């Protein structure tokens, strides 16, 4: 919190709750950034795997399950890869939507809090 000049408005419980909520949303927003980065990488890896699969002419592919690489027929691997790609894409979509919603809520709260406290509060990333 910024050190004000002592003449700012009084902080009510409602203000405190807004500040708390802003803090929570900000934390979640950072977590989401990390999760979105991982999800993007996962999507790309699956895409690359799919491309490699098309190029390869082997019938048996070593498909990773857990810590081991099981020998699986190419067709089955293709199917599995398709469903994995779908899931990964949906997950990325979900995360992006959550991030957008959080940013919108944070903007709302900024309006309210800056409106009341003006200079006495700082809600920007340092």
């Amino acid at each position, binding site marked *: 919190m910024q050190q004000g000049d002592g003449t700012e408005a009084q902080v009510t419980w409602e203000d405190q709750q807004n500040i708390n909520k802003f803090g929570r949303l900000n934390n979640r927003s950072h977590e989401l950034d990390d999760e979105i980065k991982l999800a993007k990488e996962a999507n790309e890896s699956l895409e690359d795997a799919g491309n490699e699969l098309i190029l390869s002419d082997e019938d048996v592919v070593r498909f990773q399950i857990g*810590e081991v690489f099981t020998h699986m027929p190419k067709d089955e691997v293709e199917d599995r890869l398709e469903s994995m790609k779908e899931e990964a894409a949906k997950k990325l979509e979900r995360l992006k939507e959550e991030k957008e919603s959080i940013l919108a809520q944070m903007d709302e709260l900024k309006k309210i809090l800056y409106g009341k406290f003006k200079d006495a509060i700082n809600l920007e990333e340092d």
Partner: protein
Amino acid sequence: MAAASSSSSGVAAEERRGIPAAAFVEDVETYLTQSGLDVNASLSVLQERLQQYKIVEMKLLAQQRDLQAKIPDIEKCLDIVAALQSKKGSGEPLITDYEVSEGIYSRARIEETDSVCLWLGANVMLEYSCDEANALLKKNLENAKASLAVLVADLQFLRDQETITQVTIARVYNWDVHQRRMKEAMKES
């Protein structure tokens, strides 16, 4: 800290699973008179409270990291059991390449099997039928996810208390600055 006046409208939790709630200060002047502390003493009490919260936060974050690592492990185990079960009845063994040592792989041939061994920790491994193994792993997964959810809620509560404490520190400090300014102004007049 002396018990400050409870909030008028909000319903704040008193504490959560051992984490004490930070009392919200309605009015700084009242708070200081009631607690009998001067500004500096009050600020150091609040700073100490904040430090204690931070220590608990570190602990919870470590627990969260452990759980977040555990969940994908359990999911991998479930995948393997599912793979073994899907091979049953096909008459073919499951052939896999596994890591013998770092960088060195070997091939294994897993015949049809009805059972798997699960590592339970503490140097104990038990044999289970595939169905039992599935049930056990699924239960562990649910428990881990539930624990994680509780932990996340704990962290949110804790961070709220930290924020309240930080805001209170700023308000007490600002009130003090304001008081000094007023005294200066009165002296000059």
